[in-house]
């Protein structure tokens, strides 16, 4: 078992005719993901990587029974692509695109509250259920199948922590990169609640970073609602206030909120051990299992 994706997930790739879209469609299929269609306005009738392309997502849903989408659409058109996937009643939409205007995401966020689709991202590496399916750009070869769930705001940090886990035989149920933007679809709390309900997940790793208050909210959720043990890691302990550390969402505000310290304290208070290094996180997971 797993959360959000498995071998039966039927994927439509929005933006499949672009360079990134085509390359990663091939990579996803090589991994075993069931990519059934592409969707690009004006390109209906073509074929990419052996997959039929439709003009709209709803055509792909109608003709190929797609139930999830991966979005490789440039920032200026990405919010529209997300709206289209939400309107097509998919179970899951994964937005890889980096640099979507925040006000666009605010409107998407509002729409999400009215539909049943899970949105992962944007500005994320996607998600993977090892051995079954990956939706996004994660390097499949570092993951291994197992019972540790992982949720992270950062792509490359996800890879690092997974590497530490895999190297000592700790496989993953599903790993989800939720993205580093200020406004995202699936939050830590959303992912944690899915892991809590997943019988195949026996421990969860949560990788947070400076900026915002999502980790603090997650800590409250863990304390009140979770039986599955959680190990934490927070990036950005050395970040100075007021400077944006790469991610649009990774900034410690001048008034002191969003610091690594406040997040680590909140997690510790919720009974979540926070590792000083990725290697320590793997140690902790071993102890929790």
């Amino acid at each position, binding site marked *: 078992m797993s959360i959000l994706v498995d071998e039966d997930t039927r994927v439509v790739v929005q933006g499949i005719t672009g360079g990134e879209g085509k390359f990663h469609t091939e990579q996803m299929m090589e991994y075993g993901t069931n990519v059934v269609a592409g969707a690009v306005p004006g390109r209906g009738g073509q074929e990419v990587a052996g997959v039929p392309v439709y003009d709209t997502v709803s055509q792909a849903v109608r003709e190929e029974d797609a139930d999830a989408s991966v979005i490789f659409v440039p920032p*200026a058109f990405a919010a529209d692509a997300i709206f289209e996937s939400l309107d097509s009643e998919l179970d899951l939409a994964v937005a890889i695109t980096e640099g979507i*205007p925040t006000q666009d995401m605010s409107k998407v966020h509002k729409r999400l509250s009215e539909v049943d689709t899970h949105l992962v991202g944007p500005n994320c590496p996607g998600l993977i259920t090892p051995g079954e399916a990956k939706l996004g750009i994660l390097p499949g070869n570092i993951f291994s199948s197992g019972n540790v769930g992982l949720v992270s705001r950062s792509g*490359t*940090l996800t890879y690092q922590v997974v590497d530490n886990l895999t190297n000592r035989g700790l496989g993953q149920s599903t790993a989800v990169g939720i993205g580093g933007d200020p406004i995202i679809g699936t939050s830590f709390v959303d992912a944690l609640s899915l892991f809590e309900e997943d019988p195949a997940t026996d421990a969860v790793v949560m990788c947070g970073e400076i900026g915002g208050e999502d980790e603090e909210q997650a800590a409250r959720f863990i304390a009140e609602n979770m039986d599955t043990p959680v190990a934490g890691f927070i*990036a950005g302990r*050395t970040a100075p206030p007021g400077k944006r*550390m790469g*991610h649009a969402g990774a900034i410690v505000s001048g*008034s002191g909120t969003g610091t690594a310290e406040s997040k680590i304290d909140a997690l510790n208070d919720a009974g979540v051990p926070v590792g*000083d290094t990725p290697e320590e996180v793997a140690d902790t997971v071993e102890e929790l299992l």
Partner: protein
Amino acid sequence: MKLHEYQAKSVFADAGIPTPDSQLAESTDEVLSAAGSIGYPVAIKAQVQVGGRGKAGGIKLADDDEEAREAADAILGMDLKGYTVDRVLVEEAVDFTDELYVGVTMDRGEGKPVAMVSEKGGVDIESVAEEDPDAIAREHVDPAFGLQPYQARRAVYDAGIDREVASDVSSVLTTLFSLWDDRDASDTEINPLMVTSGGEVVAADAVMNIDEDALFRQPELAEMEEESYEDDLERKAGEYGFDYVRLSGNVGIIGNGAGLVMTTLDLVDYYGGEPANFLDVGGGAKAERIANALDMVFSDENVDSVVFNIFGGITRGDEVAKGINDALGQFEEIPKPVVVRLAGTNAEEGMEILNADLVQVEQTLEEAVQRAVENAQEGDA
């Protein structure tokens, strides 16, 4: 992207928000001539993008030519929190009875814009928000529908604004929200919004920050962009297009992906070193970009040691290795020891390509960071 005060004021004024008379000046002579045409008293305000200008001596009042000359001489050319002041705004000094605050920003936790009003303007609004949160009336706005007139009124009355000016303040807030919405702002703020002795409101300051990701559809604002950097290294990073933050230590750090680079910084600190910088080469970096990153870090004279931490997803290890070889191959002697750790996509190919005479290779993140910290300590000694 931050607009300067004078730019934000012109955007606000064009939208119908009352602002005092003002002129931009670059020399003491220009200040005197501007003050002459506006009429004393005037405020002379440094145009640099830092908060707390007043406390730092960047804003002065002048009642006559002599005071204006003194103020201009003091402010023009001064160093204000790392930025040199080369322009000032000369502005009609408003005779006021009250200082209010109005602002619009994105509440990221709610995923919605929030409009704010407070009677406690004229001071650091962030400390008001912390110490006396009830002094700021807030209205969350549905992004699909925008700020409704009743919401603007409710915020103004909840904030306890004087009835005489309530309608004017409400109208300013509505305009401020429209600007925020139409111009893809991340923040629009007026602090203080002054109530004059004549019972009018006027924007004595203006803050407008634009979402960089939306500049493609805000061409007029994009044209206003004036790059300002704290130092030459930040300027260079801007030219190369890197996410870069300069720090005070001596271990230079290059990596891919914000979370992983931050983690590398934290590990340097954890193992007893001090990070010199945050440098993210981003996704899919090719050889030239890697060489540029090394150039950046070598240009920082504080750096005694460098660590490269690449975990390839989109980024390919062989490309990274080529870039490192190219960049380091040009030196007769490598300026500072470089530790490299490559993992992920094409890492093995990269390891084979890497010229082991030029760099120290480590297998894990922890080992690489510890080695770089040791190198820095030797370099320091």
